[in-house]
């Protein structure tokens, strides 16, 4: 990709310059580990804060959605009486979590009980290594980045099982089983929705995928994957699967408060519970980050003349918008039953993803069509997607009576 004119704007290169400056202090041999440590520290800091404020944002958003203000009581020790709009609420929560008593059931398998939250957070954090936050801002640029991302994601199920098994509690075990079933069911559509992107970009490395979505000089529509027919469907399936992977809203059955107390988290309390909570958010961040990278063009600006805004800002905006979108869904959609959930995955998303693969293949073959053929291309691609969508959709809901809405009178 030819570097656009303003890649060397100060803001753009600031983080890299800082890092080089710090590394400069260390001897050659230590340079690599120090660089890695620095990246880790930066990520922890940034995402730690982002996690904190995300919890607040979520509670404020839910509140507003349910026509109530949300947390606005917490204040600073010394600024009594000032309206902080609940900004310090996360810090208050953090203190609460740390100080609450950590109860471990006697019959529990202590080792596994302790190991479960640690592994969950560890694997969640490991996924951040490959996400490209900016033009050169990627912790580890390995060739099979996307695969690494999903491998790490897959490991989290292990930890959930440990949690469910170790707490020696029927509810937690059943909750773990349900969580596992959901996670495994949705891992497939998640991966399958990513495959077209990899096919079109021709590589598994996230940085190259983002570069593949660089702006064509003079093109008005951003050259992102989402703006192609298969890209859109892929992105939609990816987002639904991501929701399920992160145990978010419509798919948050495992710790459905109303039925299963907290699923595999029932026996956890205090800091371990907080860790699980943090891991969930990190998972969400990771998934939305990878979603943005794959479909929304990562740190690419929508169009050439907006290049002057630094790449990592674009990435941030996109990621946060996705997260807020997830929260928004949490506020609106109802929770799905376990059989609806798995049927949606196996009978709807997987076939659609496979067909999407077909459309992407058609799309890549017909790249050379130009002029009026573009519309034909678009029409065929859309048809290839919409028709199965409608057919499978109707077949799935064949047996159900039409939805009746009873508004509160």
């Amino acid at each position: 990709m030819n570097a656009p004119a303003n890649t060397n704007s100060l803001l753009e290169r600031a983080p890299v310059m800082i890092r080089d400056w710090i590394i400069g202090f260390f001897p050659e041999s230590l340079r690599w580990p120090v660089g890695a440590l620095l990246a880790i520290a930066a990520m922890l800091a940034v995402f730690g804060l982002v996690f904190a404020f995300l919890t607040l944002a979520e509670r404020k958003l839910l509140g507003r959605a349910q026509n109530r203000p949300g947390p606005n009581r917490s204040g600073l020790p010394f600024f009594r009486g000032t309206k902080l709009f609940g900004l310090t609420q996360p810090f208050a929560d953090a203190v609460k979590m740390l100080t609450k008593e950590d109860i471990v059931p006697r019959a529990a398998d202590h080792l596994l009980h302790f190991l479960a939250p640690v592994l969950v957070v560890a694997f969640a954090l490991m996924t951040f290594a490959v996400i490209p936050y900016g033009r050169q801002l990627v912790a580890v640029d390995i060739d099979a980045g996307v695969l690494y991302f999903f491998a790490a994601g897959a490991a989290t199920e292990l930890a959930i099982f440990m949690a469910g098994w170790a707490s020696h509690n029927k509810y937690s075990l059943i909750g773990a089983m349900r969580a596992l079933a959901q996670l495994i069911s949705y891992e497939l559509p998640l991966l399958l929705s990513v495959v077209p992107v990899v096919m079109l970009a021709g590589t598994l490395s996230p940085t190259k995928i983002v570069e593949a979505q660089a702006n064509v000089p003079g093109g008005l529509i951003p050259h992102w994957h989402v703006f192609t027919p298969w890209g859109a469907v892929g992105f939609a399936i990816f987002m639904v699967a991501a929701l399920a992977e992160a145990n978010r809203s419509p798919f948050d059955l495992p710790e459905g408060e109303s039925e299963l107390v907290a699923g595999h988290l029932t026996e956890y309390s205090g800091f371990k519970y907080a860790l699980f909570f943090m891991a969930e958010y990190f998972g969400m961040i990771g998934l939305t980050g990878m979603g943005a990278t794959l479909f929304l063009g990562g740190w690419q600006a929508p169009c050439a003349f907006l290049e002057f805004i630094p790449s990592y800002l674009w990435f941030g905006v996109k990621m946060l918008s996705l997260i807020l979108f997830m929260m928004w869904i949490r506020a609106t959609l109802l929770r799905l039953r376990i059989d609806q959930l798995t049927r949606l995955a196996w009978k709807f998303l997987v076939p659609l993803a496979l067909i999407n693969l077909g459309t992407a293949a058609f799309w890549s073959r017909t790249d050379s069509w130009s002029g009026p053929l573009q519309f034909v291309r678009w029409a065929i691609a859309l048809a290839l997607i919409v028709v199965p969508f409608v057919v499978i959709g109707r077949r799935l809901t064949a047996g159900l009576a039409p939805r009746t809405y009873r508004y509160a009178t």
Partner: protein
Amino acid sequence: MTAALILIALLILGSTAVAMSLRNLIHSALLLVLSWMGIAAFYLWAGAEFVAFAQVLVYAGAVSMIVLFAVLLTRRSRADLSIAPASLRRAVAGVLAGGATAGVLTLAVLRTNLQIAPSAAPTVTVQQLGLELIGPQVASVLVVGVILTVALLGAVVLAASDRNDGKEDAP
């Protein structure tokens, strides 16, 4: 370079040895997962990233899940937890056989003089692998695809426990 290798080797061998000797199935299963992670690390050490992540994804992600599910589904009887006397004899026989094979293998490895080129770890990009797979190996890819589907369906059929099936098998 070899330090890392030795470390990884210790991790793998240690976890497998302990896993094989533990009585608690879940623990031995999880330890095995650890050993698979060790093997993935070895692949990383050898430079085959793709294989490593595939190993992690397949084993840690999927196989471990099946193993754990299998363990859970077959836990009712307490009998298997206690080591029956007969199995002690079997254990000794097993270890002896294992030892014999180990001795022979090490003898074989040490006796053969394998020259190695002192080159750096060769890196193979995913694209090269992809081209290789789609190129000459396309047949085997398809075959593996078929095997996996068949295994999937077979497993479902075998494991599915519908009511009347039970009666048929009653001796």
